[in-house]
């Protein structure tokens, strides 16, 4: 099962290497990792999706907290969170298919963001399930390339992320 951890880390060189190295050497399984700046220039946020089937999530959290450059780690398993991921797909589309593709994109409240020679780039924002479904619907057209950002979350209300 996938769990989401949100870690605030010091904005220092190698901090990503420290976190990634910890996951690698302890044999923890990362499904996605998104790193971004925050409202505080001194810290960055890492949103980490972890497959905890091999190692208990608690152990992952505690090992992360031991890293000196990691300021806080919050496990959002029990929290109400807003979760978003962005996906772009470059898909083979003939001119004659554009209308139906536009309709499909509309269902997912996505956008067509580029039209090229025989290909479109479509974009969708949503939780990971929605992105999975979005991708699945384009499989029949022929996906040339795709990219996902990895999910980011913010906890609702007064709960900290």
């Amino acid at each position, binding site marked *: 099962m996938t769990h989401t951890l949100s870690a605030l880390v010091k904005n220092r060189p190698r901090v990503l290497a420290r976190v990634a*190295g910890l996951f690698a050497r302890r044999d923890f399984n990362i499904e996605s990792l998104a790193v971004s700046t925050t409202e505080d220039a001194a810290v960055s946020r890492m949103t980490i999706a972890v497959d905890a089937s091999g190692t*208990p999530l*608690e152990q992952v959290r505690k090992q992360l907290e*031991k890293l000196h450059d990691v300021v806080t780690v919050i496990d959002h398993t029990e929290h109400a969170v807003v979760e978003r991921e962005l996906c772009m797909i470059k898909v083979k589309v003939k001119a004659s298919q554009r209308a139906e593709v536009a309709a499909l994109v509309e269902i997912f409240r996505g956008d067509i963001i580029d039209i090229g020679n025989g290909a479109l780039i479509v974009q969708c924002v949503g939780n990971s399930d929605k992105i999975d479904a979005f991708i699945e619907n384009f499989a029949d057209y022929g996906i040339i390339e795709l990219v996902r950002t990895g999910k980011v979350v913010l906890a609702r209300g007064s709960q900290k992320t």
Partner: protein
Amino acid sequence: MSQKMINGAQGMLEVFAEEGVDVIFGYPGGSVIPIYDALYDSQIRNILPRHEQGAAHAADGYARSTGRVGVCMATSGPGALNLVTGLANAYMDSVPMVAITGQVKRNLIGKDSFQEADTTGVTIPVTKHNYLVTNPAELVDICREAFYLARTGRPGPVLVDVPFDVSIGEVPWTERNIEGLDGYEEPQPVDDELIRQAAQMIEEAKRPILMIGGGVVASGAAEKLIELATKCNLGVIHTLMGKGAFPESHELSMGMPGMHGMAYASTALQNSDLMIVIGARFDDRITGDLEKFAPGAQVIHIDIDAAEIAKLRPVKVGICADAGAALEKLVAACKSRDKGPWEQQLFEWRRTHPLSYPMPDEGIAPQYIVEQLYELTGGSAIIATEVGQNQMWAAQYYKLEKPRRFLSSGGLGTMGYGFPAAIGAQVGNPDDLVVDIAGDGSIQMNQQELTTATINKLPVKVVILNNSYLGMVRQWQELFFDNRLSGVDLTGNPDFARMAEAHGGVGLRCAEPDKVRETLEQGLEVKDKPVFMDFVVNKEENVFPFIPAGKSVDDIMMEQPKQEK
């Protein structure tokens, strides 16, 4: 406001002085010359090893035996990389160390410059934390932070990589203020409710037992441990790292469990219904097959590292705290408890399954040598060990009454650790007898440090149990690989006694059982130079008891299987 400026290297030494550093184990090279230049005018002594690995292990031995932070230093590139094994060794055994490494000038970093290596990159997995000082304004505070991180919480090695132009340049001097570091897990106060629950579990248990590890030593909690054990009449089992934290001559001492531990200790754990584990981490050498390990026992686990609690074994009560602080509260919370049938059973197991070994027809029994050393010294020596059979015989037959007197590579299992560690321990404890119990394989891994010992007049004693084999591997090959001995024959070893003499030390050789005692006596007499005592032992002696890797106490081998020989 103008800030006071100071030469970078001098600033580092000022911080060392604040921290009470009196000795550095360091080897110079191009990028640490500014620091050696500052040392020229300093009260801090530099012990020059003959290899950087020796420097790291010596700092480790100094730290383990004194409780202070050990400091080692090396130059950029190969020098720094030669520290890596020593850092990993200290990290696995939670030893407080600060390693200073030189780095190429900042504008040369990343350019494949001469003697450049990515030291901080390489050492992330083997240090508690590390720093590359890119901003000179941070140098002084980083050095302070390094010591703070090394000695607080779960101790460990911290590395500071200092580019040449930072140590030779001017840096601002700042006043000392390092408490409450952002992102650092400060030790938490002991949770009273958890202590109450633990005390209740001890009261209700039928077959409770204490298992204590290196955390009790690191915390300086040995006296509190004795209070708890005697108040509640709890048998005390120690791990290799916990050796000496509880007096081994004490009625309640139940020995060391695990792969080569005492059968009575492993049996006691296996049959307990409550394990009170303090500063120990359920290493596989203790537990064997985790699924089969002490299946009927509930666990109270006290450890300063939250990540150790329930890492391998589920716990009923987990207390993340300093061992001494937790023990103090636990002693107060526990009711006195008398010895009962369970304790009588423990003592019975201990009486009926003592350690034993056969006297060989040829050569000397290695266990006998350790026993004689113990008797001659009254258990008062600081013992370092190498790794392998020598390490296990030392742990089995040299009994200790006090902590910080057993220096052994428990986690990493580093051959070549013991001799330089003994040198570091002798530097930190000039009036103590320091003995390295070694094998003929291990001693050759850092034998170059003989010179270090001679030049510094360090009377480190090395007892070599010489079987002309890599004995532990040979033992596994004999017992599990049809005696197909491969790569373990050390025939052609140097003459260790003459080697010691060639380095200005004293060399003794003994091949007869009835000369063991006099050889030891003669060696222990030497007061101003290192001594190698080369004992030719029974080549094929094995370490027993033996619980094969991944098995349980049900599979224990107490002695040499009859059909095998």
